[in-house]
């Protein structure tokens, strides 16, 4: 739950409509720019102490807030 809140707080900076649902497609918001992508990777690594690498580069890992939370939990579990 806390992970979701932190990710939502981060995403709010990039989303005009702050009410995006946890399972809403972020790509459909037009959010995913190179600027956002780089910010997101650094945010996830710094905030959650994980390393995002080339094996994680799958659109499904970043499509929704829930998907990002799942990625973080998976990486924490295998760290």
């Amino acid at each position, binding site marked *: 739950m806390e992970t979701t809140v932190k990710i939502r707080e981060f995403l*709010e*900076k*990039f989303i*005009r409509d*702050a009410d995006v649902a946890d399972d809403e497609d972020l790509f459909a918001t037009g959010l*995913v*720019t*190179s*600027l*956002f*992508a*780089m*910010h997101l*990777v*650094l*945010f996830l*690594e*710094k905030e959650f102490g994980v390393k995002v*690498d*080339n094996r994680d*580069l*799958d*659109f499904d890992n970043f499509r929704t807030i829930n998907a990002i939370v799942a990625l973080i939990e998976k990486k924490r579990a295998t760290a």
Partner: protein
Amino acid sequence: MSMTDHEKEGATMAWTPDQLRAQEGFRAFVDEAIVPFADLWDRDEHLPEGIVRALADRGCLGATIPTDLGGGGYDSATFGILCEEIGRGSASLLSLLTVHGMVCQALTIWGSDEQRAQWLPRLATGATLGAFALTEPNIGSDAKNVETTVTRLEDGSYRLDGKKKWISCGQIADLFLVFGQQEGKPVAFLVEKDRPGFSRAPLSGLLGFRAAMLAELTLDGCVVPEGNMVGRPGFGFTHVAGAALDHGRFCVGCGCVGLARGCLEACLDYTSQRKQFGVHLREHPLIQRMLTDMITHIEAARLLCVEAGVMKDARDPRSIMATSTAKYFASTMAARVASDAVQIHGANGCGQEYPVQRYFRDAKIMEIIEGSSQIQQTIIAKFGHLDHVRDQRARSRKGSRG
């Protein structure tokens, strides 16, 4: 020439004793091996193999590569100092350091374990020279729409077709990080210089970066194995090019501080030697004003670069905008300083006897490469709005909680 007091204060404010010692070493190397020859390289439009080897032997080419992969593992501040010093000596050589480092950075962050193990130790020693191949004859800033096509073949390999232009060190690099589109998805590949279907042609007669060994690359049915893909289809621009460009912007920003310092030092020398109207130029208030602006703006640019470096080492997301801001400010500053340096030198500044004409030409290029000033303006303004909206929301929430 020794540092001015302003420079010493700026240097010591944020740097550690180790970083200052590194600066001393870089400075001596640049004074001995680069400054005396930079004009000659510029005129010849050629970087001698010896200087590239010297850079490699000092560990500069592997500066940012992790130590467990044979690199120097420099922190960003030390790497920034290196870029500043190389930029003071030769923008063309800085260009080599930049594009080589961009390939190293992309592989360090997004390379597979196999790619990192195969290439980073060789890139670290300079046994392999890297270059970044994004720009095309028809595509510059609109990089997401590169026209190079990537086609997956039945055996799992990939065929690349297209042209890349204005590729720094394209004449001498061994390994290219090439960007293309696979069915509309941006994708990045490593292409070795000896791949069938790959060819290159030198570009000459440029305004600046004349010794940067630029080339136009042709990919004509160039087939590479799947293992040469960096990242995944769809992530080539946002992640792989993004990481490389972020590194390049930092390198260029710091290099611009060095270029401007080169201008300042040339002007401090010149205005102490040349007399007009019976007194040294340095006694003229209008000259003093230009020198004052140079010193102040160089200091400001360096502080922006130092801040970006500190954030980079902390893996702080804010480092991305800090780097864009530093690159934008430092490159526009360098162009202004170089223009004033030519002005101070008068007709002498337009000839080959003094280096300021080279700085002037090179400074213009700095405003174009690794994201033009207009791209930086677009990004920085957009981000300013995002910050503003976030702050408004935070204030609104605070207000509603009473």
